[in-house]
């Protein structure tokens, strides 16, 4: 199982903040997961993290990973 979290505009437009998913037996990469969740819509402003570290490159996902999708940060 992996935990998938959504924040900011992304959570809003998906209408959910969290999802648990079993990894398929053939494995799943971060980019493949993104494609599956976001319908390949290719929003250039979509950001990702794995285990709370922002990542920009593709990578295989492992059981217990915490993946998050979100829009650009805006604090202050």
């Amino acid at each position: 199982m992996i935990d998938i979290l959504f924040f900011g505009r992304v959570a809003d437009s998906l209408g959910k903040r969290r999802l648990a998913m079993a990894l398929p037996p053939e494995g799943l990469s971060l980019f493949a997961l993104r494609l599956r969740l976001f319908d390949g819509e290719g929003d250039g402003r979509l950001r990702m993290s794995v285990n709370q570290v922002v990542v920009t490159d593709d990578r295989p996902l492992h059981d217990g990973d915490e993946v998050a999708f979100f829009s650009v940060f805006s604090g202050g």
Partner: protein
Amino acid sequence: MEMEVRLLPAGFDPAAVHGDFLARFGTLGAVTAFTGVVREAAKGAAVDYLYLDWYPGMTETSIQAIADAAAERFDIRALSIHHRCGEVRAGEPVVFVAAASVHRRAAFEAVDYMMDRLKSEAALWKREVGPQTDRWVEPTTGDADDLKRWSDK
């Protein structure tokens, strides 16, 4: 280096935090402080509150990283970051940043730097909500320019 870094889901009193910081570190000589408060209007539209979405764990880490970078980069002896998350109503403080140093330039620059980075690099997502408004705010090109000021040094 003394650092206090807080992500706060409930309201806080920046004047009290400032008073405490001054009492502890004022004798160094120079204390600069910045307070950001939610404005009652943005781009002409009334704002009731900001909602700052956050990622428990990662948000704290991202703010701590900004504090660490400021401590490394400037000749300061103490710093404080207090940042709200969740719902922050118009008129309420959203961020307080302070630095103490022996010479004032370092304290000024450290606070300025931390504010610029918090705007774009703290793991927070800001939504503005008002009677005619409900929108996610993204950093402006001005914010990006502010940040660039620190990259050529």
